[in-house]
């Protein structure tokens, strides 16, 4: 390899062959495996999948907040910091909140109820940089203005219970952005909010992202949000990525049967509910080597899909699907 070549030039994060398992006396099976993806600077990447598919496991492994029992293998390369999995807890603490921040689903529980909003923002500010009291307060005020909270001066001295859900989520975004991180991990940040509030928060994220060129890993199960905010999409099913590509490619030509199923089961305004086409149930025991989506797939081929797991097939420059028949799946109309 030549010296000047730097594979991390525009990628903020590279995840290579990530595998997470919780060893127990019963099984060694990995809950998440064979995860490869990159996040470029200023890119918004969606991680989509149903509950239990491992989305949150992946995100927590990046910021190293998994439970102690978790066994993580592979590489998580952060630009200028190297492999996060090799760092000590102390080194990691310098990265959390500074290089990588996270916002969570429940704005009701993520804030500490006994401290004021101002105190909690200042706490985040002072964790990575020394500020005088006055500077810190000014900076906190500036952050509240950034996230468009009305009357920020009075809000600083209020407690979380005095704020609505949308306002609390704004405060959490302000805290997450306090030290200008390179990567923001947003774990279902709008799921607990009303549609109008959700739209406001999405607007805010879009605007902040444009302004500061921050990269976002956006975890969600809402395909509508993905279509309107994200640049590229990773679709997870039972611990594996089954399809990945640009948002345009994924929505215009979903090429994995699971992605297709997801798209079909979303209720859409102005349309009748689509009746799901269920595959005939499979009587014989399914082989351990079969494709993970075998049971639910309506495109399956008994011999091919039943005996081995599909590898990624490249469909276009930025579009891959882990299916034996991606062209067949992609052709069929939604």
């Amino acid at each position, binding site marked *: 390899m030549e010296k000047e070549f730097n594979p991390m030039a525009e990628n903020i994060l590279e995840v290579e062959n990530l595998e997470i398992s919780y060893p127990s006396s019963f099984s060694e099976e990995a809950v998440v495996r064979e995860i490869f993806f990159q996040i470029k600077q200023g890119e918004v990447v969606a991680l989509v999948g*149903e509950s239990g598919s491992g989305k949150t496991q992946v995100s927590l492994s990046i910021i190293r907040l998994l439970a102690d029992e978790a066994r993580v293998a592979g590489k998580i390369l952060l630009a200028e910091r190297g492999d996060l999995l090799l760092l000590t807890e102390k080194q990691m603490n310098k990265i959390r909140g500074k290089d990588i921040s996270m916002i969570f689903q429940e704005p009701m529980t993520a804030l500490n109820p006994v401290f004021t909003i101002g105190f909690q923002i200042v706490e985040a500010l002072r964790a990575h940089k020394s500020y005088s009291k006055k500077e810190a307060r000014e900076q906190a005020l500036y952050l509240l203005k950034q996230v468009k909270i009305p*009357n920020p001066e009075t809000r600083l001295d209020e407690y979380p219970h005095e704020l609505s859900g949308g306002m609390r989520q704004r405060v959490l975004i302000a805290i997450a952005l306090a030290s200008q991180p390179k990567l923001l991990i947003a774990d279902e940040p709008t799921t607990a909010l009303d*549609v*109008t509030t959700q739209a*406001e928060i999405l607007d805010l994220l879009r605007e902040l992202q444009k302004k500061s060129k921050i990269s976002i890993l956006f975890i969600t199960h809402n395909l509508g*949000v993905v*279509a*309107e905010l994200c640049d590229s999409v990773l679709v997870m099913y039972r611990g594996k990525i089954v399809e990945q590509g640009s948002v345009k490619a994924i929505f215009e030509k979903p090429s994995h049967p699971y992605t297709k199923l997801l798209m079909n*089961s979303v209720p859409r305004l102005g349309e*009748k509910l689509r009746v799901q086409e269920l595959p005939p149930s499979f009587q014989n025991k399914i082989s351990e080597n079969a494709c993970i989506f075998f049971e639910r797939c309506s495109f399956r081929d008994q011999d091919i899909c039943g005996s081995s797991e599909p590898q990624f097939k490249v469909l276009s420059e930025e579009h891959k699907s882990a299916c034996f028949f991606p062209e067949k799946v992609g052709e069929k109309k939604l």
Partner: protein
Amino acid sequence: MKTLLKVSSLSKYYTVKEGFFRKKVSILKAVDDVSFEIFSGETLGLVGESGCGKSTLGRTVLRLNEATSGDIFFKGISLASLGGGDLRKIRRSMQMIFQDPYSSLNPFMTIEETLKEPFYVHSVGTSSEQDECIRFLLDKVRMPLSYLKRYPKDLSGGQRQRIAIARALALKPDFIVADEPVSALDVSIQSEVLQLLSSFKEEFGFSCLFISHDLAVVEQISDRVAVMYLGSLVEIARKEDLFSSPKHPYTKALLEAVPRPVYDEERRKKYFSLKPLDEKMRSPLGCAFYSRCPLATRICSEEKPMLKGAGNNPFNHKVACHHVT
């Protein structure tokens, strides 16, 4: 069409005590002067954000909450004046389905006991008739008979909600209030329960007040839709009219805010237009939507708009806004 239920100027206020020694008393208008009708066999969808009073309205209609003022007429009988025995008798034909099937079923009762409860409460039928009825219901909600002896803990969320629906249908009610019956369920299960509900509507012919915050869900199941904002109805119309030509600025914003699962360059660039709600800008006299409304003028802060006919179909399409004609 025959009117089954008529709600007239219904209000429900709560007093909120706050401050030192809880001496400061303020009034929270959860439901404020709401009137509407439900025809027989019809499903009226009720949408609004969390905290707008839609659940309170649903409960007050059944007199699970006592109204502060106003009245409800069920088949022409005023419910507000009914007491004890009479109310109990009329409750037989009004049922409710709750949001959370994890807490609406008694964990210590088997499915059989749960389904028998309504018959027992209203002393309907002999034991064998009840058994037959329960079997019929279970079959209707597509659950195997072996589930009769099981407890709610053995059931998934979707199955529990189907049991809750079966229980509500047990006495063949004329009117059902369904309060967010599918919001606690996963998307694929949601559609299953919705399909079940709409097939029962055809078969049993009951009327339904269907409360939800999800516009797409409401669209699927309702005949007419009412939109609620901070305690008042702001628009009520036939489903087709409301979704194709919404009139009230809040309804428009609500429809615009729903993210579409389609790749659309335009929508990705567009910003949402509504201002965030600012409690401090609320005026007690004027329109509840005043502080967020793009059309707001002086009259909006001074006078509360009433529901009135609008558009091509003024009898069926009513809007509460000074700026809509």
